[in-house]
């Protein structure tokens, strides 16, 4: 059972949240050096968080290292494999969680001591559960969550052209044609990257036959199940019917596609709640500075269209965006926990995650829709919260090999190298081998 993602119409969240002690009440007894790694918090923001942390714990020396997402995971893997584990680090959900769980410290005693026996109530159930291993070890606590499966459109351009976001596949094609006529790229996606292709495919599959995708992922049914073949063919039609832009298969989501959308050359894009910061003033300012333009445009999420004709719009998937983990071999566990607890505190969750309108890790913090700039955006936050509360579908796949195989299959089908059935048969082959082991 998952709790409602909380929203409040009250302006201030901090007033109702538990505050961290101020400098006057700083805890000087905790000492040590903590090495903290992440891809999630840009270096400058991380340094600011560390500064705030040091107001509360002045005797803990924190070294924060940010890496880009594509550097982070290879570097982390190398370090951990060689026995050089950071004290605190962020980790992804899915396969990666399982890989690193053996190297983590069980956080249960720490979090129980701090928050009491009903500590679990402070988190959303499904994300929290995904951070607990089979034998009950709390290997990671969710720092920030995400929801995927939504599309976004440039409302400014749409209004100018008298268009509305599509609710069916046919409408999607029509809107795309209209945008092309106006010299706007209709829909842009970094199809050279597996993760966004998977988001799209999962959104389609969850419409065609909700849940079958996950049965296949768990090895309970074959990947060549008719509903999955149908989903694959719908995926292909996006390319054949002019919805995806030409050359999508050689573009990246960040920066290529995101750039085209942000510079108003493209009308639609697929992003999840991690993109919500573009609805805030701070987010818009950052983009304007980077692109050197004074133009603002209204960017609004919309629900995934009904692509299989059953009259239902798409839902969302939910997962942990980043876990916080502590190293089992850390020499400064008390200090490391101080940092983790700080990052999970209401104040930081509210100001850091809430400020970006992304879903906080803890459920005790509510999102403040008034941070969004327009009405339509605020509405979006509301229905996103409802959809996320109603879903149990995870965003990440469990096995990296099957994930890679499916990613390759999606590209091969989109580029006409294989038919939908043949591509899925390949994935099934890999799946059988994996589940046999």
């Amino acid at each position, binding site marked *: 059972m998952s709790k409602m993602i909380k929203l409040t119409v009250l302006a201030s969240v901090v007033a109702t949240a538990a505050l961290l002690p101020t400098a006057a009440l700083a805890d000087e007894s905790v000492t040590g050096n903590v*090495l903290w790694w992440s*891809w*999630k*918090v*840009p*270096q400058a*923001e991380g340094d600011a968080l560390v500064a705030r942390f040091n107001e509360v714990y002045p005797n803990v020396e924190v*070294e924060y*290292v*940010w*890496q*880009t*997402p594509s*550097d982070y995971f*290879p*570097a982390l893997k*190398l*370090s951990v*494999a*060689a*026995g*050089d584990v950071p004290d605190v680090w962020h980790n992804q959900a899915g396969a990666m969680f399982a890989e690193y769980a053996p190297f983590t410290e069980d956080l249960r005693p720490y979090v129980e001591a701090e928050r009491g026996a009903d500590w679990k109530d402070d988190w959303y159930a499904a994300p929290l559960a995904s951070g607990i291993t089979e034998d009950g070890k709390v290997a990671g606590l969710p720092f920030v969550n995400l929801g995927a499966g939504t599309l976004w459109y440039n409302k400014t351009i749409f209004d100018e052209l008298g268009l509305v976001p599509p609710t069916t596949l046919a409408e999607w094609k029509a809107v795309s044609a209209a945008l092309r006529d106006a010299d706007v790229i209709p829909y842009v996606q970094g199809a050279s990257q597996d993760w966004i292709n998977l988001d799209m495919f999962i959104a389609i599959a969850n419409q065609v036959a909700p849940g079958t995708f996950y049965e296949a992922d768990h090895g309970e049914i074959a990947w060549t199940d008719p509903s999955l073949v149908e989903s694959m063919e719908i995926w292909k039609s996006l390319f054949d019917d002019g919805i995806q832009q030409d050359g999508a298969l050689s573009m990246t989501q*960040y*920066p290529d596609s*995101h*750039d085209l959308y942000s510079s108003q050359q493209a009308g639609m894009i697929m992003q999840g709640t*991690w993109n919500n*910061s573009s609805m805030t003033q701070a*987010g818009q300012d*950052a*983009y304007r*500075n*980077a*692109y*050197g333009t004074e133009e603002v445009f209204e960017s609004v999420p919309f629900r995934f269209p009904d692509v299989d004709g059953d009259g239902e719009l798409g839902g969302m998937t939910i997962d942990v965006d980043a876990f916080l983990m502590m190293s089992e071999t850390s020499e400064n566990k008390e200090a490391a926990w101080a940092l983790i607890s700080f990052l999970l505190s209401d104040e930081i969750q509210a100001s850091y995650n809430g400020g970006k309108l992304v879903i906080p890790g803890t459920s005790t913090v509510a999102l403040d829709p008034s941070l969004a700039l327009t009405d339509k955006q605020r509405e979006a936050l509301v229905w996103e919260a409802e959809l996320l509360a109603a879903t149990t579908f995870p965003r990440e796949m469990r096995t990296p090999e099957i994930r890679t195989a499916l990613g390759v299959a999606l590209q091969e089908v989109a580029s006409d190298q294989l038919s939908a059935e043949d591509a899925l048969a390949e994935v099934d082959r890999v799946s059988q081998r994996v589940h046999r082991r």
Partner: protein
Amino acid sequence: MHLQASPATLRISQGTLLLAGAVFAAPMLVAISVAMRGGGVTNFVTVITDPNMPRFMLNSLIVAGGTIAVVLTSATLAAYAFVALPLRWAQPLLLLLIAPLMIPPASIFLPIFINVRALGLLNTLPAVIGPIAALTIPVMLLLIRSFLMGVPRSILDAAKMDGSNSFQTLRFILLPMMKPILVVSTVWTFLTAWNEYFLPLVFLRRVESQVVSMAPKYFTIDERTPNLGLQFAALLLISVPTLLLFLYFRRHLIRPVTSGAVK
């Protein structure tokens, strides 16, 4: 040394070369236009005046300088030996020294990491210099060796007649003649060391010891969106030292070295 050619051939060649120059340089105009995004020329100013830049540059210079010293010395000595000295098992030895080239770097990152840690070099610049040198020496060895194989035997024989031993031959006769290949080797090694990304990423954790190839990635809009304007400005600025190095040493390439040496 100029080759003689008819005026017509000369004109065609001139045209072709100009075209070639244009083709190789034109895409950089796109890069420059990206670098101007958001702030125009001020992007370059922002990058240069970034407080971390001087330290990054210094670290990169140390890495590059160290690598060049190690690579050029080792490769020249070894190349000379293979070409001028009657080594037994020359072929197998050569293969052994070239073999490191054959393994994809990604496959040996973990073993190198283990080694570096065991040597206690983690977080130090030699941790980066060592592996880069190890992977560049084979390349330089092959290039310098091939260059030396083009040296007329008569020159070496004359040296022997004059009674010089192997080291003196290398130092006083061959080295001056090797300027062109040493220039190429220096530029190449500098380029490799200067642009090396993954090794510093993994081995140099402290911000103080970071190198300049790490600089661009810090210019972001948020944790997943790069600020392309600033990043490209940084990338372009970072390639300037290599260009300067090349320009500085170019004159050694142009002067004909052997004309008149053997009469």
